[in-house]
């Protein structure tokens, strides 16, 4: 009987303790609470583990290191309250509601991934929290901006990513560096399908001949048939609108098969440092979504990110995540208090200095982002973008190491 009681109380305690996770118990009312929701488990967890959570951790650490946020009434340390949404939108919604009504946080950071940000937009609007999204790529920005005065988009639209990738290939074709035959594959999931559908008409207009055009299910363990068939169609360029596991799988297969195209592009996760770590010299000159300009500030950011969080930041979303945090910090300190409406207004009325340069979200959208990157000498350099001026030149892929 006693063991049963012990188990019962133990289970009850465990369940009670599982509600939420706080990094520091804030009995101190001067500590400012920031809510963070994202996938720690589930299919999108690995991406969030690199781009989403560590950035907030780094930011909170740096803010507290210099004493805290500087408000009108002095310095205030910050505390993060994190919830795992398990990659399920209903859980994201519940967690955000909880942060707003139960934990009563002073600010809620954006959530991770497009669908999730869109799902919680009404709740942020209801409680007046500004929603400064980053990991949110959608073609519906204009409608959403009209509907929600407190939403901000810091990434481009789906079409802009497809367009930019194909523009790079078009330039190579027009310069007679590659032919006009392209093999296109895509993962049969949201972003992959959207990119593929956006890409087809753009390829046609650019004068490309799509010699192989197939999709594969998410989580396919063997991509050999896909790569073999693509190779057999004799393409000059290979484009994969792919997700992390297949981005890695396709590159490995391409290496083994000897897919000798002069331009190789795979969409998501090419920008992960893990890609270069896994493939070493074979990753050289692989194109992918994202990219960043190599500057001393960026290098310093990567160093700090690794030191404080233990995770290597990626070359796509990470620097922009950090930049939006810089914008939020500057807005809060500019207003001098946690008045959410004032902070939202400040974001709409000012320019901000960040690690990626000067940023301006006065129209609730940042029309300044990098779209295509290429691995060159161990750094995923930005070779194309919107709103920036200098990009690295594109190199042809000569071998798979």
């Amino acid at each position: 009987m006693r063991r049963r009681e012990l188990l019962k109380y133990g289970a009850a305690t465990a369940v009670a303790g599982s509600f939420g996770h706080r990094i520091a118990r804030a009995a101190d009312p001067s500590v400012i609470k920031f809510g963070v929701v994202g996938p720690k488990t589930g299919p999108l967890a690995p991406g969030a583990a690199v781009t989403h959570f560590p950035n907030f951790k780094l930011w909170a650490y740096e803010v507290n290191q210099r004493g805290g946020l500087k408000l009108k009434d002095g310095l205030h340390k910050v505390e993060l309250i994190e919830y795992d949404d398990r990659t399920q939108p209903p859980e994201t919604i519940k967690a955000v509601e909880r942060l707003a009504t139960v934990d009563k946080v002073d600010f809620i950071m954006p959530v991770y991934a497009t669908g999730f940000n869109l799902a919680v937009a009404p709740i942020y609007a209801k409680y007046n929290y500004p929603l400064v999204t980053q990991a949110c790529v959608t073609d519906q920005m204009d409608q959403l901006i009209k509907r929600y005065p407190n939403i901000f988009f810091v990434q481009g639209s789906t079409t802009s990513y497809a367009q930019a990738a194909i523009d790079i290939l078009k330039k190579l074709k027009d310069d007679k560096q590659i032919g006009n035959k392209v093999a296109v594959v895509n993962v049969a999931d949201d972003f992959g399908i959207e990119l593929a559908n956006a890409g087809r008409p753009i390829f046609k207009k650019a004068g490309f001949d799509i010699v192989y055009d197939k999709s594969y299910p998410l989580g396919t363990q063997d991509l050999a048939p896909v790569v073999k068939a693509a190779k057999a169609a004799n393409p000059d360029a290979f484009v994969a609108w792919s997700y992390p596991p297949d981005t890695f799988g396709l590159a490995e297969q391409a290496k083994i098969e000897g897919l000798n195209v002069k331009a190789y592009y795979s969409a998501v996760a090419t920008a992960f440092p893990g890609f270069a770590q896994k493939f070493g010299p074979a990753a050289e000159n692989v194109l992918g979504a994202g990219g960043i300009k190599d500057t001393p500030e960026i290098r310093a950011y990567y160093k700090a990110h690794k030191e404080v969080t233990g995770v290597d930041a990626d070359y796509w979303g990470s620097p922009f995540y950090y930049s939006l945090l810089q914008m939020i910090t500057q807005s809060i300190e500019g207003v001098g208090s946690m008045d959410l409406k004032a902070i939202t207004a400040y974001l709409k009325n000012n320019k901000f200095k960040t690690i990626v340069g000067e940023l301006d979200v006065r129209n609730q959208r940042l029309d300044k982002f990098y779209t295509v990157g290429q691995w060159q000498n161990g750094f995923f350099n930005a070779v194309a973008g919107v709103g920036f001026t200098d990009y690295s030149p594109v190199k042809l892929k000569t071998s798979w190491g």
Partner: protein
Amino acid sequence: MEIIIIGLLLGATYALMAMGLQLQYGVARIMNLANGEMLIAGAFGTFWFYTASNASPFYALIFVIPLAFAANWAIYRVLIVPLVRRARNQGQLEVDCILATFGLSFILVGILLAVFGGEYLSYSYLARPIFILGEPYGLNRVAAFIGSIALCLGLYLWLHRTRAGLALRAVSVNPAAAGLVSINVTRASALAFALGGAVTAAGGVLLSMFLTFDASLGVVFTLKALIIVILGGVSDIRGTILAAFILGLAETTVASLVDPGLTLAAAYLLFMAILLMRPEGLLGRRSS
């Protein structure tokens, strides 16, 4: 010809995923929904070993197999035995085990997350082509194929040629009768469960050479393994191996000759068709 070779390589991959679950479900009669997490634990252990030492991942088998065996033995003793003792019939035991191991899978995901983090982990090993009949294939996949065949053969021989294996097979046919012929059913079931876990973890070691893993991916592998085990007929390891290779060949054929997007549809169609014609699975026994 290419299709057959790729299909066999894929079949070997599937066999590695499913054999452990067959031992746990077919012999120990435990539906282990935490099977995928054990596979990932094996893969993560290898990743850590390979990045730390740069020695061949095959050496990781030396510590992964005993550790997985011990861990699964402990799980059986602590979590499963009480369920077995109080189950009044096989149906209730299955339900209890499904619920218990489902919860266990969450715990294991949490542990993997805490120890290894949430990111994708993968490394490159033997990612070079080997030419068979003039066509390139991944050397790492061929190595995993050889490992898989060795494991299949080893398990089959052990189960069908040794006394201990005979005891396990007796337990899978009829636990009550096995007890009557002085087989220690609890011990045999624990052995089957632990061995199944060890085989799954070994599969994880081999698969980590060419697949990318993250802490949350377990459920995908459990699902695939479940389909293969049921397709092959729950009671016989040969059925599982056969089903794994049939599935691998079928998927590759569809991917190469029809459309890679239809591989999942084809796999499930095959699954439904075979079960409709033969509900006990390919090599299964009719209602034991």
